[in-house]
């Protein structure tokens, strides 16, 4: 951390690419490497140099089809969902100034899953394109409940927020189970989806989520400086001319939208949105302009690796990426609990 605030203020208008910037670029390079490197690891194995060739249309028709129709959509989804979850977690942690807050700990993920399950099982004939909307309604409702309940004596504390989040998640989970038992025919399918599996992903899902990530993430870029200033405290930020309440509301809604869109295509993937911003903060510091891209890249990296393990570890059986990510992520969360709480 060579860049002190003073140095940053004295820097020329065109920002120099410092060490943190290089780290972000390095992380995205790693993502690309992981994306290409894990290609061809699925049930139909395509050995490595051929996998990349097949992506560009060279190779046997079987290889080309395996890579283009089965592997490519999954890798793209892992990449996009990872970005969405990482960025969303980064924004929420910054807004609440709370290391433990993330879409999964404050109830957004389970709420979104509940919304989607109700749509999937109770109205099976509803168009699949409504899925992100249902997930969003569920996610924002759960978050609103958590906030209202945790709000006491003019504010909330980090621990109360997370405990209430855990409790509301447990409630959503129990309703999900009720709906699943009620519509027992769809249990198997719903379970696969709920556990964060990327197994049934096709290009359709990629097109479904791409606009959300593609629009919302750049939108957040407009707010990074306001978020930085708000990190100094609400009073200071208001004094510096930032509309605090308005910024908080709009960025929170964007973050919840991002997380819900991710949940709606990939199921409830937990811990990714909690851990990625934490690691990113260690690597690039807490300026949102660098933190959010880094968090997104780390989220992608975690999901790409988790999905590759899920595809390849026990082929042809698919382990859900969300499950692998949870098992990778839980030790880090435990470490946080032991150190920080």
């Amino acid at each position, binding site marked *: 951390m060579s860049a002190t605030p003073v140095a940053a203020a004295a820097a020329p208008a065109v920002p120099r690419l410092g060490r943190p910037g290089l780290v972000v670029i390095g992380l995205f390079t790693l993502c690309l490497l992981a994306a290409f490197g894990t290609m061809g690891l699925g049930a139909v194995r395509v050995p490595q140099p051929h996998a990349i060739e097949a992506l560009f249309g060279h190779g046997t028709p079987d290889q080309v089809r395996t890579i283009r129709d089965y592997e490519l959509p999954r890798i793209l989804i892992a990449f996009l969902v990872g970005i969405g979850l990482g960025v969303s977690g980064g924004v929420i942690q910054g807004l609440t100034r709370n290391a*433990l807050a993330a879409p999964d700990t404050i109830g957004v993920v389970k709420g979104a899953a509940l919304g989607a399950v109700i749509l999937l099982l109770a109205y099976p004939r509803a168009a699949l394109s409504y899925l992100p909307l249902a997930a969003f309604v569920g996610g924002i409702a759960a978050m609103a409940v958590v906030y209202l*309940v*945790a709000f*006491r004596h003019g504010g909330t*504390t980090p*621990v*109360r927020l*997370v*405990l*209430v989040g*855990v*409790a*509301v998640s*447990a*409630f959503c*989970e*129990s*309703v999900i*189970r*009720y709906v*699943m*038992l*009620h519509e*027992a025919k769809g*249990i*198997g399918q719903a*379970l*696969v989806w*709920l*556990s964060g*599996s990327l197994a049934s992903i096709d290009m359709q899902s990629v097109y479904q989520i791409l606009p959300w990530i593609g629009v919302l993430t750049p939108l957040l870029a407009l707010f990074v400086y306001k978020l930085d200033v708000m990190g100094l405290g609400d009073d200071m930020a208001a004094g510096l001319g930032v509309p605090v309440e308005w910024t908080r509301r709009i960025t929170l809604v964007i973050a919840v939208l991002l997380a819900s869109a991710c949940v709606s295509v990939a199921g409830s993937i*937990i*811990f990714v949105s909690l851990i990625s911003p934490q690691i990113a903060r260690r690597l690039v510091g807490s300026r949102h302009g660098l933190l959010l891209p880094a968090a997104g890249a780390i989220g992608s990296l975690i999901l790409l690796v988790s999905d590759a393990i899920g595809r390849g570890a*026990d082929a042809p*059986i*698919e*382990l*859900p990426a*969300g*499950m692998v990510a*949870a*098992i990778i992520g*839980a030790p880090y*969360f*435990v470490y946080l*609990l*032991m*150190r920080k*709480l």
Partner: protein
Amino acid sequence: MSAVPAAGAGAASAALARRIRAAAAFAAFTALALGGFVWSVSIGPEHIGFWTIVQGTFVQGHSTGQLIVHIIRLPRALLAVLCGGAFAVAGAVMQSVTRNPLGAPEILGVTWGAAVVAAIATTIVPSLAGVNAVWLSFAGGGAAALLVYGIARYGRGGMSPARLALAGYTITLVLWGLVQGILIAFTQDSDKFFFWLVGGVTTAEWRQVHAAYPWLVGGFLLALLLARPLNVLALGDDVARGLGQNIGRTRFLALVCVVLLTGAAVGVAGPIAFVGLIVPHIVRKFVGNNHLVALPLSMIVGAALVLYADIVARHLDSHVEMPCGVVVAPIGSALFIYLARREKVVA
């Protein structure tokens, strides 16, 4: 001089009032549980009169009604009583030992540890199916409990209720992830198994009652033996040590008791979540913290809760019989939310 006897009389009458309150609570909840038992046995597709129920309960008759009562309905009600009591007493012991209103076995991962091992036993390693399912539940539940307790205990700054709850939640998430993976890998039984995972007594048979009750009775007896040491322990570690108690032994026996009760109950009824969280809070409202009274009453209240939850679950849906975990969980999570809001837990 005159104030002292008056104070003594006041204390005596307060003690008397407490006893009357406790006796009234016992009588009321026992009546509630008995009523629930009879109600539970009486409902079903075949209408059965009250006397047939009594006859079918105590003697193995030959009429259709008596046979239905004896073979189908009685084990279900009995299992509800046994498992409800077991989860409730385990919760009471655990909340007391951890000095933590959130310290219930389902929050500390004991139930899920037991469930995961049971899941692995029935799917991945069928050769383990020969081993008594109850033993496997003990192993899984014990391991999960130790893990969660260790995480919460050896962190920086020692144990706090919130840390214990969050550590339990994390381990529960990981275990639930494992269970989902297993369910997906072995899809042919997944809906049946999912049913079991919600926790309930819908598929009860005498076989399950026989498999569980020795362990459960052992666990109940151990809990009752622990009532006095737990009362002393509640005064604080230092006081308990000063009064000559072996604290380590009390804690260890309490853990054994919890694992016995939870493991055996999960082994036969699945993880009926939140009974162990809810019941001790209800009981404390009525009789306070004296374990000699609170533990037996927890057993009765737990039995009543699961009996009635099972009755409600049977009426929820006209074409599927829901497991009673579906009814208990929303109540439990609402209570959890209420507790999480209180300053005491967070501080």
